[in-house]
């Protein structure tokens, strides 16, 4: 079955330090991978995606993610965390079995990022 795992419920980082939010996936074929962020009382906001090409993908707000096929991972990273980065982060993969051209997403359970001053 296709799935996404986010092994950490919460990640705590000091402001200015690098952050990593982990994601691993299990799919048939080549994965289409996404990161979304959810701020309180807001919808899911797209951060970045990997479809093909360079393994290091750059996205919004200084975030980047590294696709690692051998480890089936797509970890989200940022070199220097800000307090304003505190939010809930979701990794997602496009459902290649049912999605077809419609492409519904399969989400991880989310990781709460807390950045302290």
């Amino acid at each position, binding site marked *: 079955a296709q799935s996404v795992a986010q092994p950490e419920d919460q990640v705590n980082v000091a402001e200015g330090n690098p952050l990593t939010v982990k994601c691993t996936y299990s799919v048939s074929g080549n994965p289409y991978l996404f990161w979304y962020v959810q701020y309180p009382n807001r*919808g899911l906001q797209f951060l970045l995606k990997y479809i093909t090409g360079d393994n290091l993908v750059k996205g919004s707000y200084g975030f980047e993610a590294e696709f690692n096929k051998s480890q089936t991972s797509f970890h989200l990273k940022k070199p220097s965390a800000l307090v304003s980065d505190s939010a809930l982060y979701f990794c997602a993969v496009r459902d290649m079995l049912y999605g077809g051209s*419609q*492409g519904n997403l399969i*989400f991880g*359970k989310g990781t709460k990022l807390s950045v302290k001053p």
Partner: protein
Amino acid sequence: EPEVTQTPSHQVTQMGQEVILRCVPISNHLYFYWYRQILGQKVEFLVSFYNNEISEKSEIFDDQFSVERPDGSNFTLKIRSTKLEDSAMYFCASSERGRNIQYFGAGTRLSVL
């Protein structure tokens, strides 16, 4: 920047009542989706909609659920007879093309009492 809007932000209803959750997708988008997130759990796919018909639906999307695009702008999710376990945050999303980025609304929190 265009955005997906959902109304209401919070809906409280009694068990057995019908509810309609409303969404206005981004105007030039062609693919529409509903997802839900039960408190503390994953965001789960419910249904996708294209060309005025359901494209895919999950096992969650049973006969109690229906979707409609009644005019050129709105996309609705109806739950005919709500159950306690329908309490969740419901997210609408749209994309320009099926494989493109999905843009999400802020969600409607449904509380079934």
